[in-house]
């Protein structure tokens, strides 16, 4: 039976499959694919993801793109746990994913 909730659609970019850790809270940079002027707005979040959408029944849809922008064939499920700051503390020109991991550890 449908819960009536509309699943939102998000997209993330990752450097490699090892970043897609399931059954754990992980930091992600996601963007909103809702049509309209604000489409592609970015968010920094801590989330739980799963490659089996049925295991996250109250989750949203997550598409994954690789470092060269290719979208993986299957959609994942995502449940956003909390927000991380849009201005991620970090060093310019250094890896943003390292800054993201630090932000999660610092408990933002």
């Amino acid at each position, binding site marked *: 039976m449908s819960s009536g909730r509309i699943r939102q659609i998000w997209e993330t*970019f990752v*450097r490699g499959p090892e970043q897609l850790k399931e059954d754990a809270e992980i930091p992600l*940079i996601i*963007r909103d694919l809702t049509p*309209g*002027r*604000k*489409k*592609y*707005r*970015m968010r*920094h979040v801590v989330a739980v993801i799963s490659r089996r959408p049925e295991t996250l029944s109250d989750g949203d849809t997550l598409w994954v*793109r*690789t*470092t*060269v*922008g*290719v*979208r993986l064939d299957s959609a994942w499920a995502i449940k956003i746990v909390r927000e991380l700051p*849009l*201005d*991620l*503390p*970090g*060093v*310019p*020109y*250094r*890896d*943003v*994913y390292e*800054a993201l991991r630090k932000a999660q550890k610092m408990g933002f």
Partner: protein
Amino acid sequence: MIEQAVKREKNAKGVTQVEWKDTRQFIDALARTGDLTVVEKEVHWDLEIGAIGRLACERQAPGLWFKRITDYPGCTVFMNPLATWRRVAIALGLAAESSVKKIYREYEEREGRLIPPVTVSDGPCKEIVKRADQVDLFDLPAPMLHEGDGGRYIGTWDLVVSRDPAAGWVNWGIYRFMVYGARRLTGFPRPTSHLGKVFLDHYVPAARPMPIAIVIGADPLCHLAASATYRLGGDEAMLAGGLRGSGVEVVRCETSDLMVPATAEIVIEAEVLPDAVGLEGPYGEYPGYRTGEMGNGILCRVKAVTHRRDPILTIDATGYMDDSATITSMSGALAIKRRLERHGVPVVDVYVPPEGAVHAAVVAVSRGGPEVTRQILEILTSRRALLSKIFVVDGDVDPFDLGRVLHAFATKCHPVTGVHVVQYTGRANTLTPCYSQEERKRQAGGTVAFDCTWPPGWSREWEVPVKATFDSIFPEILQRKVTASGGET
């Protein structure tokens, strides 16, 4: 004749002045010469504009002016301003059908004649002023240009104004910027770019935000100047004045003391944060590929946006044969020529062919050989190594004639002793598609120079092969006779 449609005036000093002062007048000029397609039907900012613009580049088609953008009534988009030599010629006030060599020579002549900007107290770019919380970057129709890009790129045909706080020197450069949030942008001026270097040397160590102004839709020669490969400390605003034949009118920003072209369509005033980051890229870039350069850029906080009424967003459909194929190639070629001359290389001419995506250059020299080739290789890779292939040809080969260049390469480059390679770390072009992700991370790469010249030690009488072409292997008197009769003797 088309030249008559493009007005070109000379002032009292005999300096050529182009007639337009802004993007709108340039659009009118393109319409008069048949170099503009006006798209009246509604198109979507999400990929559709990008696809049309991409195809136009690959077909070398006219510039595009999209009049109705989905979700954005009141805004229009002008695409690929200088992506063909015809449009570059028109921008410079030349006949649209001018040869590439003629355009190079004209640019070279004007480049040496700097004219300072003129400060004005107000300008069209201030018709609408939005500050702080009034700013929402999603109010502008930044397109998603390629399927799979990291974001909506608003800065593709821009000029970014910044200042070196120690020397007071002002830089204009074209750098990519992506919309991240209502008041956030991420960007990728390379760390080795002039902006990147000033930011890393002066602002990051002091933990100070760096003011910048992202100017969109200034007159085309301002953008041409901003794209120029210019020396550190060189003033692109003065170069733009030289190219136009009159000083660029500039007006002060709302939130910093940076000066921007007064007739620009849109100005985004921002500061680059010294202690925060965001995701930037990946992006289908000028080499014609999306290489995976992602997540190593800069984050900016937007403080104000000013624009004209009914602003025109100018966009480059970045990729193979985009705007960089003409203007970056040309200014890059002339910068190479000047640099080699300064180092005493007997350079005759330099051509950076558009099809080579600013990765390959042809250098013609009056005296070649391995020593000269090696010298050229070292000079052109000592600071920033953007080129990966260099063809060194003798002065009797026209570097603009790629058929002749390929002939010289195929026949004169010794496959064992004619290939010179240099490798480096920390200054390679991270957008070069053939590099691995690991090399990109280390900015590691290499450049190869092909010596397509005869060894200087070879005797002209006994060793140098005689070129078996019409203009080389027959007596001049016979050549004249044959050409006079149209080749039908």
